[in-house]
């Protein structure tokens, strides 16, 4: 579904992503974990076309993002960590606009269903400038799902969502996976990752340092059945020795 081959992204002298390889399968939920500044957002920005890779290749549903960006984008739905929309447009108008841009001429029913599903129906005709952060986030989910994407990517999807929103989103991920879609999410809430993800990828300083199911990660780190994802994560990111950020973050102030 999504294939990333030795992706590298530099910002001047900073190496944000360092020859990263990753392959996902249809019908799986993959959690992308890593300390702050590890390169998760940068990887996602490269995949969604918000940034262009310094080198390496990305394919989405078989379409190379460099050679066939439109086809790759058409197969992708994206929810950023801080969604912002045209302030003077209503949610319904925004979704119609996206449908128009994507040339989905009969999206009306789908739009209503999405607004209903994400509890925005009552606010669908209010300008988005009046929305709370969580409402904007829910609108971003509607926008991303409008084109029924094969690859669904979210960056910190839970930030700003209420309790019901958390549950809705977790349920959504499982539903999408059951329908054969691929879901990729980043999060710092390890419980969420543990709950919804089929596989977990850990990134540190731009490199992929571990990838697998909970069981595979336990085996990799020689931990017992009782080990939580938090144990595994800290073990992995610290195991690299000079992991400055991860280590210093745990030092008592």
């Amino acid at each position, binding site marked *: 579904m999504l294939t990333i081959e030795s992706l590298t992204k530099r910002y001047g002298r900073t190496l944000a992503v360092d020859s990263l390889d990753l392959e996902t399968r249809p019908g799986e939920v993959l959690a992308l974990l890593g300390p702050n500044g590890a390169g998760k957002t940068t990887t996602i920005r490269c995949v969604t076309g918000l940034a262009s890779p310094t080198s390496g290749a990305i394919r989405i549903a078989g379409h190379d993002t460099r050679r066939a960006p439109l086809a790759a984008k058409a197969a*992708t739905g994206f929810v950023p960590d801080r969604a912002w929309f045209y302030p003077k447009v209503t949610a319904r108008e925004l979704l119609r*606009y996206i449908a128009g841009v994507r040339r989905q001429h009969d999206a009306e029913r789908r739009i209503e269903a999405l607004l209903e599903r994400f509890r925005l129906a009552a606010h669908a005709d209010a300008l988005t400038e009046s929305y709370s952060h969580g409402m904007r986030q829910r609108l971003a989910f509607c926008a991303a799902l409008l084109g029924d994407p094969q690859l669904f990517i979210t960056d910190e999807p839970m930030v700003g969502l209420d309790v019901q929103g958390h549950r809705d989103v977790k349920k959504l991920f499982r539903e999408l996976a059951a329908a054969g879609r691929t879901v990729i999410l980043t999060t710092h809430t390890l419980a969420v990752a543990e709950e919804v993800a089929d596989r977990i990828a850990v990134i540190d300083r731009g490199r992929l340092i571990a990838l697998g199911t909970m069981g595979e990660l336990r085996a990799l780190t020689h931990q017992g059945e009782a080990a939580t994802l938090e144990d595994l994560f800290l073990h992995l990111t610290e195991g690299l020795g000079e992991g400055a950020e991860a280590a210093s973050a745990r030092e008592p102030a």
Partner: protein
Amino acid sequence: MTLAALRLRGALRSLAARPAWLAGSLLLLTAVTYGGYRLVRAGVTWIYAYPLIDTIAPAVTQRSLEGLFLMLMAAVLFSVLVASIGTLYGSDDLELLLAHPTDAARVFGMKVLELFVNAAGLPLLFTLPVLAGVGVALDAHPLYYPVSVLAAAALYALPVTLGALLALVLVRLSPAGRVREVATAVSISAAAAALLGLRALRPEQLLRVDPQDTAAFESFLTAFARLEIGWLPPAWATNASWAALDGRLHASFAALVGLGGLGLLLSGSLAHLAFARGWVRSLDTAPAARTRAARPTPAWERFLTRRLGAVGAILAKDARVFARDVQQWSQVIVLAALAGVYFVSLAAIPVPTQQFRDVMGALNIAFVSFIVAGVALRIAYPTVSYEAGSYWLAQVQPLRKRSLVLAKFLFTLPLMLALAVGLGVAAGRVLDLSPTLAFGAPLAAGFSAVGLTGLAVGLGAAHPRFQYTNPNELAMTPGALTFMGLALLYATLTTLLLARPAWTALQRPGAAAYWTSPEGLAVIAMLTALTLLATVLPLWHGTRQLTRFEG
């Protein structure tokens, strides 16, 4: 001032990222500044050398300087109101700065400085070559230069203060979430009032005199010299500069600098107070959900998306945003006022003979191009940047950047065409031009509208700025300066092309059917080629740059 240093370093770094454009814009700016300086110097020298009027030459120069000060003060006032709300109360960095253990007085000091640079920086820059020209032409005492510059700076600090105080009142009184709207409305009224005030001075009186007719010209100059505005601050600045010409310090200098400094201090402390009291909360966007009735997709929107695909969808969205965002549609009102004033002035000019009328008509073609360029800077140049914080949405959709840029071009074009062709046709009517020019004026204006819209949208796409606190900022970026330079070039070239038919019309006023003659067709062909170049090349360049852009 470590905060200011930090700001400055950030600005320099972003400029240094595009060295070629920076060099080009700087070169252009230097050329314009130097040109202004030479012009003023020559003008002042000429006035002083003009026979018989040497006694009133200083008065004429002083009045001209006062007029300039007055005009630029009005310009500062116009831009400061909206800018002050954004800078003093609404900036994203304010909360961060104030959350830190930095001295709040310093934060607001920097904010006021930023506001001053934002609103008065460009007018001050325009003033410098004029002051230098006057100084060099009159062989000024060295003291003149610092004193006159400081006096001008202090003068422009007055409208900055006024704007900041007005902003304070607005922040306090406006219905919550509507501060920006009200501020925009007030600025528009101020601008309209300033334009009307300018009209009241009846500048076309200048044209009623023939420089060859010495007696009339002298009586005009004498009348002009007596037109003192005495007690107003622009006169203080002029008096201070004038005294400094021979190395004296005038009392008005102290008054002006004192008042200007005090004003800025007051603005800073009041802004601090206002912020501390929590009035800033009312700046948040409308709290109440303004619900619009749910309606099925309107027919016009469906038509656009079905016929034009993605471009149509963007057009529909932009039309909505334009109609609902005061900051966008209000620009049109300024334009309408501008066009109105232009026509009233044009109609007021006495035009005795057909030939004189046709000369005016030919000049008018150049003027209309300049007006259209100015309008394009306000309306067409920012369109891509208007995507602002929502640009990510366009980036992740399966949408060609070409469609986006094309949609922006198509959205602005009708407005620009209506304005330009309207100005061309109206000029033909008002001036009662001969047929060749009566057709040539709207033709040239229409071409200008297309070419300048393409140039503006293209350069705006090549230099997008998605983070701004108010759209006025966009008109002062390096990209905008480049646009102005190229637009002037384009306007000059069209005017030169049109000089030929204008000349023919003057030579043979009765001759009809110029535009169907081989020569007329050749002129149209060249105009078309030039306009295509000015449209397609920038749009293509803008699309390419936008494709490479990473937010």
